[in-house]
C-alpha cells in the first residue's frame, strides 16, 4: 500500500496499476450472476429502480456511491437476504447460472449456500469456538464433509487467518480482534464453497492494517469465485476490483448510473455524475 503511495486525485493510477484486468467471461466458472431490472421497496417506498448488472465469473465488482443510494439493498437482493426485512418487496430477476433465484419453488437456503455474504459488522457466533464458527455453515445447512480439519485449515488459510489462530482454534470467536473476526466471518462463508461472495462494506469497521489483509484475501479469492463488494472507500474499489458500478440517488430511489471496467470508471467515466463523485467533488 505504501509502495504505490497515492493521493486521492490519482485514483485512476491506482486503478490502472492494480492488476491485469480480466475480460468479461474469461473465467471458466460459468455464466455467473445477472441482475435484470431489479427494483426494491421498503413498504411503499421505492428505494432501488431498475438495476441491470452482470457479474462475470471470477471477477471482482465494486459497487460505490454515497450513503442511501441502494447499494446494500441491491446486493441483499442477490442472495435473497432482502426479504429478511418484513416490509421489503422487490421486482425483477436475478439469474444465477441462468436460473432465476426468485422463481417460485426455489429452495432459498440452497441459493444462500451458493451466494455467500460477509456483513458490514463482524458477526462471529458468540456461543461457538473459532473452529466451530468456520464450520457453522456445514452444521446449519446439514452438509456432510469427510475431512473437517482439512476444510477448517483451508478456509482459514484462504481468509488469511490460519497463522494467527492455528494455536487457539478452541477459543471463542469473540476473543479475536475486529479485523480477525471479519476474516473469521469470511472463512465461515468460504466453508460452504459459495460460487459468489457478497461483501457489504466489509472493511468499514476495521483499521487500515486489517483492511489491507482483507483486500489481499479478496485478491486471492477472486480467481476461484465471483466477488461483489460494496465499499465507501474509492481507493479500495480501485485497488481490488475489475469492474465498478456507481449508484446514485437524487433523493428518490437509487439507480445504477454507470458500470464499467474499474480503470475506465476512475479515469474516463462517461457520466459527469460519476466523474464528480470519483474526483471527490460531491458525495
Amino acid at each position, binding site marked *: 500500500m505504501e509502495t504505490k503511495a497515492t493521493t486521492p486525485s490519482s485514483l485512476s493510477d491506482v486503478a490502472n496499476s492494480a492488476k491485469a484486468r480480466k475480460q468479461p467471461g474469461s473465467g471458466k466458472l460459468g455464466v455467473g450472476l445477472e441482475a435484470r431490472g431489479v427494483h426494491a421497496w421498503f413498504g411503499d417506498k421505492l428505494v432501488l429502480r431498475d438495476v441491470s448488472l452482470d457479474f462475470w465469473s471470477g471477477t471482482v465488482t465494486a459497487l460505490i456511491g454515497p450513503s442511501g443510494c441502494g447499494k446494500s439493498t441491491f446486493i441483499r437482493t442477490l442472495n435473497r*437476504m432482502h426479504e*429478511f426485512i418484513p416490509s421489503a418487496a422487490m421486482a425483477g430477476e436475478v439469474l444465477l447460472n441462468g436460473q432465476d433465484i426468485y422463481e417460485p419453488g426455489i429452495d432459498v437456503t*440452497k441459493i*444462500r449456500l451458493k451466494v455467500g455474504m460477509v456483513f458490514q459488522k463482524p458477526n462471529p457466533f*458468540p*456461543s461457538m469456538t473459532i473452529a466451530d464458527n468456520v464450520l*457453522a455453515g456445514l452444521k446449519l445447512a446439514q452438509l456432510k464433509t469427510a475431512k473437517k480439519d482439512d476444510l477448517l485449515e483451508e478456509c482459514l488459510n484462504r481468509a488469511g487467518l490460519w497463522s494467527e489462530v492455528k494455536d487457539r482454534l478452541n477459543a471463542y470467536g469473540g476473543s479475536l480482534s475486529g479485523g480477525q473476526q471479519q476474516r473469521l466471518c469470511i472463512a465461515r*462463508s468460504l466453508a460452504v464453497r459459495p460460487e459468489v461472495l457478497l461483501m457489504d462494506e466489509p472493511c468499514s469497521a476495521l483499521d487500515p492494517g486489517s483492511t489491507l489483509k482483507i483486500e489481499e484475501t479478496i485478491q486471492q479469492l477472486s480467481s476461484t469465485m465471483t466477488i461483489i463488494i460494496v465499499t465507501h472507500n474509492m481507493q479500495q474499489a480501485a485497488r481490488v476490483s475489475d469492474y465498478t458500478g456507481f449508484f446514485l440517488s437524487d433523493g428518490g430511489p437509487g439507480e445504477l448510473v454507470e458500470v464499467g471496467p474499474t480503470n475506465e470508471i476512475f479515469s474516463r467515466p462517461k457520466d459527469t455524475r460519476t466523474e464528480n463523485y470519483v474526483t471527490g467533488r460531491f458525495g
Partner: protein
Amino acid sequence: MSTVTVKPGRPWKRTPKQVMSTVLVLLVSAAISFTAVAATEMKGKLAYLAIFFISVVVINFAENYFNRGIAAAKDSVSSSVTAAGLVIAVVPIFSILYTIFDYGRAGLNFNMFLKDMSANGPNDPLGQGGLLHALLGSFIMVGFGLLMSLPIGILTAIYLTEIKGIYSRPIRFLVQAMSGVPSIVAGLFILSAIIFPITKSSSGFMGSLALAILMIPTIARTSEEVLLLIPDDLREAGVALGGTQWRTVSLIVVPAAKSGLVTAIILGIARVAGETAPLILVSGGGDAVNANPFESPMGSLPFYIWKGFIFGTTESIARSWAGIFVLLVIIFFLFIAARMLSGSGSKK
C-alpha cells in the same frame, strides 16, 4: 540505574478531609434528631429518622450553597433523597429476612428433614415430625410444572421474537395479561376444569398443572426479553450461510441466549415455589410422604406453612416459621444461581 517507581493512585477519590466532613454532617444530624425528640412532643423511631433526614438535607444544602453555589446545593438534595429512597426500600427487606431467621430458628432441627407429619399433630413438641413430605411435594410439583411450562414458555418466546407471525401482538398481550392473573384463579381453573368434571380427586399433578399455568407467562416473558437482546446480525449470518430458520434459531440464537434462558427458568421456579392458594385448592395437602404425583393428596412447603398458622398453637406456629425459613433459603439459592449463570454468560 535509578528506577522511577510510580504508584497507581485514584486522584478522583474523596480525601480524608471530605469524608470527615460527611461524617460530621451525619453526627450533627443525629445529635439534632436526639435533642429534638427529647425536647418536643414527638416520639418513636419514625420521628428520629424523619428529623435526621431533614437535618442532613438542610446542612448539606447550606454547606454546598455557601461553598459551591446553588447547582451543587440542589445536587446534594437530590443525592440525599436518593439515598433515603434506597434506605426505605432496603430496610423492610432486611427486616423481613431478620424476622424469618429469628422466628424460624426455634423450629429448625435436623430431624425435620427426615420425617413427615403422618404420625404427629402440629401440636406435638418441635423435635417430633418434620417437613420432608412438604419439601418432597414442593420439588415434585414444581418439577412437573417446570417440565410442562418450560417448552411452552420458551417456544412462545421464540414465536414472539423469531417467527413474529400475525398473532404475535395478541399473544404478547395475553402473556402479559396472564402474568397478572391472581394465582388462586389458576387453582380455581384446574379445580373446575379438571378435578370436578374428570378426576374427582386432588393430587400433586393437579398442583403442577396450576403451577405451570403461573410459570408459563413468567418464563415466556423473560425468555422473550432475553431473545430480543440477541442482535439480528447473528440471525442474518445464520440464514445467509444457508441455514433454515429453525436451524438458525436452534444452533445460533438459542445457544447465544443460553445463560439468559436459564435465568428465565429459575425466575419461573422462584415465581411459583411459594404459591399457596392454588395448592390449597387442588393438591389436597397430605401430611404423609407421597412420591406419586398422580394419586392421593400431596403436601408442599407453602401448604405446610399455611396449615401451621391455621392451627395456631405455639408449636405449630414455630413449625410454620421454620418452614418459611427453609423455603426462603431455597429461593435465595435459586436467585444466586440465576445471577451467577446470567453473569458468567454476559462476560466472555
